[in-house]
């Protein structure tokens, strides 16, 4: 709006109301919300001025926007306000329902893709450990022959899987952090959100914990099934098979 009308701070403008009055206003500041829909048509005046432009008395107010510290409390708060003051209150979630649905669907897609990838990786580990057990058949036989019990042997393979999980998980998180900080510094210019210069990245411990947990759980199961096989192997069969 500022660019379209070739205005700058300190300029005077005149606006005419429907009632035929003319008001002179001074531009004291420029504001950009980042949403072009809003920026193209909106400008702001103080409350007394607005009441004068509309020709109303100074107890006339159409809307009050309230920002809460915790957004999740907004629906309950809106209900409480409606009852207390006998007014219409709309919470931010219902006001932006369309946006919420979009976010939900996007999250769903990204989780589905990542879980699929992790399951594939889990199968990879399962395969490797399965092959490893055949490769280590002789070692399993001698461990059992010299007095290691089935659970001992199972524990060896499970702990190996867990070690793979921990190392892989931690390396993955470090790699993920590096990649996301590279993306965080990548220029990202869009008309819709002029205040953002690089891709917005949310660094939250929660997501790193989810990643690590999933890595550990998937490698545990990938190791558990082959280790059961190792537990059940009969040393006599292996030694006699030589």
């Amino acid at each position, binding site marked *: 709006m500022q660019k379209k009308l070739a205005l700058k701070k300190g300029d005077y403008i005149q606006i005419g109301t429907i009632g035929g009055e003319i008001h002179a206003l001074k531009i004291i500041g420029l504001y950009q919300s980042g949403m072009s829909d809003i920026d193209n048509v909106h400008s702001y005046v103080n409350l007394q001025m607005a009441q004068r432009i509309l020709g109303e008395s100074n107890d006339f107010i159409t809307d009050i926007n309230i920002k809460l510290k915790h957004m999740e409390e907004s629906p309950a708060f809106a209900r409480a306000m409606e009852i207390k003051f006998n007014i219409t209150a709309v919470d931010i979630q219902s006001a932006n329902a369309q946006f919420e649905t979009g976010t939900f669907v996007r999250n769903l897609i990204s989780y589905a893709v990542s879980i699929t990838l992790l399951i594939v990786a889990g199968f990879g580990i399962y395969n490797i450990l399965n092959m490893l057990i055949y490769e280590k058949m*002789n*070692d399993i*036989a*001698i*461990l*059992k*022959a*010299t*007095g*290691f*019990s*089935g*659970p*001992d042997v199972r524990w060896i393979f499970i702990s190996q899987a867990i070690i793979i999980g921990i190392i892989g998980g931690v390396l993955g998180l470090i790699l993920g952090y590096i990649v996301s900080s590279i993306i965080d510094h990548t220029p990202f210019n869009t008309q819709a959100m002029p205040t953002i210069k690089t891709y917005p990245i949310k660094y939250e411990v929660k997501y790193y914990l989810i990643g690590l947990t999933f890595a550990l759980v998937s490698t545990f199961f990938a190791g558990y099934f082959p280790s059961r096989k190792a537990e059940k192997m*009969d*040393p*006599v069969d292996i*030694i*006699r098979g*030589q």
Partner: protein
Amino acid sequence: MAILTAKAISKSFHFPDEIEILKDISLEIQSGEFVSIMGKSGCGKSTLLYILSTMDTDYTGELYISDQLITGENAENLARIRNSKIGFVFQFHYLLAEFSVLENVMLPAKKLGVKSKEEIMHDAMEKLKLLNIEDQSKKLTSRLSGGQKQRVAIARALINNPGIIMGDEPTGNLDSKNAEIVFDIFKELTEKEKMSLLIVTHDVDFANKTDRIIHMEDGKIIA
């Protein structure tokens, strides 16, 4: 004193056909005795050894080790008995390639968990000295010769001072010179350490030098 007693042991394979592989075998091995089992391939001598070693539990009859009934024990207890009372030497050495000689020898003692790590290490070095391979103790087992590997395997069998050592053709993969070394080691063990030995072998010369030969044929002891 009998270290190992077997009473009326029989075993059958049920698949693919019903074959009786061991028929009513009874034997007794005294403490400090050096016994060899001989017989043609397929006569059941290895099968017998695996039953006596507690690894194979699918048989009928009774087995005693140091006058303690072993038959019917659960897998956990059998593993403990194998760990503390029986030493194994196989045709193939079965050493863990990723570990050094010393670590391989120490492994069964670590599982037993009676002694501290230092004591076990000391014991393992003693056993290696007994077998004249203490200078190889830091090497990876994959860097040893066949005869040396077999001696390491014997040292591993000895680490928990078992009452009996069982061997399934322990000299089968060795040349005559190394076979002789292994035999001399066994002989020395029975004489000096009063250890019992039960060795399955094809080697007639080897068997002839032992205290007693058990001849087997078609699942029976014939002599």
